[in-house]
């Protein structure tokens, strides 16, 4: 973490719990830069997370009010906190498993209600904390602890899901493209109503290792290469497209 953002880090913090090379650390940096640009007073910021490695992005790292809740339940906790004190800029940052699997129902209902919060989903396409099991975001054919022969089920396109449920804004970028990612987070927080940012975040320990993606540099290259714009995607065949993430703003 660069010194520039130190004011947002919690005092008394001794290092991070993330594995070396975890994308969640980069996402933390992007979130802080977006918040810094917005100039919201730190006392008015509330970060809420569920359970998982990604839930550690705000808690304990960010030195504002933080609510580290139960697996899957960050959004309902945030709903109560925001409604009881509408002055709080409420940002939910948690994992793909947390927000879209166990917490999927809360996600679509918050979007439907247009709750004035921003959800940042760290999508590492797997359950990191519990040892690399299949998530509802795991791409078809990739290997996990519970699908060693390759996952057979289609993953959610979470941006399209929340769009269908009524989100005012949804965007997807990998942590390897921080300029776009920070812009998207900033825009999402600025927009009143339910907004969503999905950050593709590599998990070297569980996902990278199981899928033989090579060393960290290769893993990051592979993740970046899997992200294409809508125009790029249009030029791809169906099979090719299915293995890519379409990045950009899905709702604007």
């Amino acid at each position: 973490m660069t010194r520039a953002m130190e004011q947002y880090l919690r005092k008394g913090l001794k290092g991070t719990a993330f594995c070396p090379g975890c994308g969640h650390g980069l996402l933390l940096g992007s979130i802080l830069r977006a918040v810094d640009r917005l100039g919201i007073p730190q006392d008015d910021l509330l970060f809420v997370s569920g359970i998982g490695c990604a839930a550690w992005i705000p808690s304990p790292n960010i030195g504002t009010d933080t609510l580290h809740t139960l697996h899957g339940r960050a959004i309902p906790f945030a709903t109560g906190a925001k409604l009881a004190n509408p002055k709080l800029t409420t940002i939910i940052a948690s994992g793909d498993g947390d927000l879209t699997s166990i917490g999927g129902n809360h996600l679509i209902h918050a979007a439907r209600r247009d709750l004035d919060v921003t959800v940042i989903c760290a999508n590492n396409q797997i359950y990191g904390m519990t040892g690399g099991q299949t998530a509802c975001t795991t791409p078809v054919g990739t290997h996990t602890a519970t699908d060693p022969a390759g996952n057979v089920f289609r993953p959610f396109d979470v941006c399209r899901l929340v769009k269908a449920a009524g989100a005012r804004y949804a965007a997807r970028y990998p942590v390897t493209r921080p300029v776009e990612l920070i812009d998207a987070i900033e825009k999402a927080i600025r927009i009143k109503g339910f907004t969503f940012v999905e950050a593709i975040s590599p998990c070297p320990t569980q996902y990278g290792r199981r899928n033989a993606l090579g060393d960290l540099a290769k893993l990051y290259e592979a993740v970046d290469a899997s992200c294409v714009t809508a125009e790029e995607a249009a030029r791809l065949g169906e099979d090719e497209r299915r293995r890519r993430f379409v990045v950009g703003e899905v709702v604007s």
Partner: protein
Amino acid sequence: MAEPKRKERPAAQLLQGNVAAAEAAIRAGCRFFAGYPITPSSEIMVRMAELLRERGGAFMQMEDEIASICAVAGASWSGAKAMTATSGPGFSLMQEGLGYAYFTETPLVLIDVQRAGPATGQATHVAQGDVMQFRYGSHGDLFPIALVPWSVQEMYDLTIRAFNLAERFRTPVFLAADEAVGHLRENAVLHDDYEVVDRVRFGDGDPFGSADPAGVPVMPAFGDGRALMVTGSTHDPKGFRKVDDPNVHDALVTRLMRKVMDHADEIVEVDAHLLDDAEIGIVAYGISARTSIAAVKRLRAKGVKAGLLRLKTLWPFPEREIARLGERVRAIVVPELNKGMIAGVVRGCTRARVLSITQTNGKTIDPSRVVRFAEEMS
């Protein structure tokens, strides 16, 4: 010129138990309600929706009970007195969130209007089958507070008390109602000469620890500028996650126990009826205490010296009061609408003979059953 009006005690009004509880919540300062419809508790939510709209505050019908309890805990951390209401299946769904609220010392009130279970059971019929779920429903060591109303008046009075205890001890507090009391209609006074306890929000000290090993820490709210760190993982007094430190976990679990159990005298309330010379003591709670008081009157008319110890607090359990009763009577009878859940706890508090009257057919116990039972014994 007209005389200035003296403040008059409000008149009694005919009310439903569930409605009285909603009125009480508002008067105790509740400004947030989240819930999901379920019989026989729904009238509480419906009335809260009206009252919060009139008096200010936030109401949210959530997508399920899991979301409801989590929203209530979130609102509490934003500084609001907050409540939910549910019944059996919904109460089961809330257990994980209740454990979180307990471990993070989040004040809230939950009213469970018990219906007959397990599973969907008899949705519209009475039972007292959740009494152990109040105590042991969530995982880990918990020392909860649960109050038991037996009348519409107590749906009002004990709901106010539940809010006060929640704030005083910074913990979730249950109102262990049952369908018969929740749906009862009778006269009650919505008085307003009660004490209202508010949480200690400002002060020195850490938000999750205190010098007193049975202490209740100050509880700042989100937005107070304290950069609060709230986590359901084991945490030190400042809120830092310390999951690998055996001393931190033990100290936290022990303090949470002592904060309730060392203050049991302040929390436990019982009500004694005709126990001074009693030879047979009936121990009952909720609607079964209504049955029992009727039975005591009939038994006395027949010359049987019976008396009633009515539990107004279920947890912490009134152990001392039961032990004292056991020393004075020949036998203790416990009528309840389950297979003897509280009778078993009573047995653990006394060496006196404890006899259990159980009924699980979705109906209240007829006083004549208790009368016959007591007569056979004497």
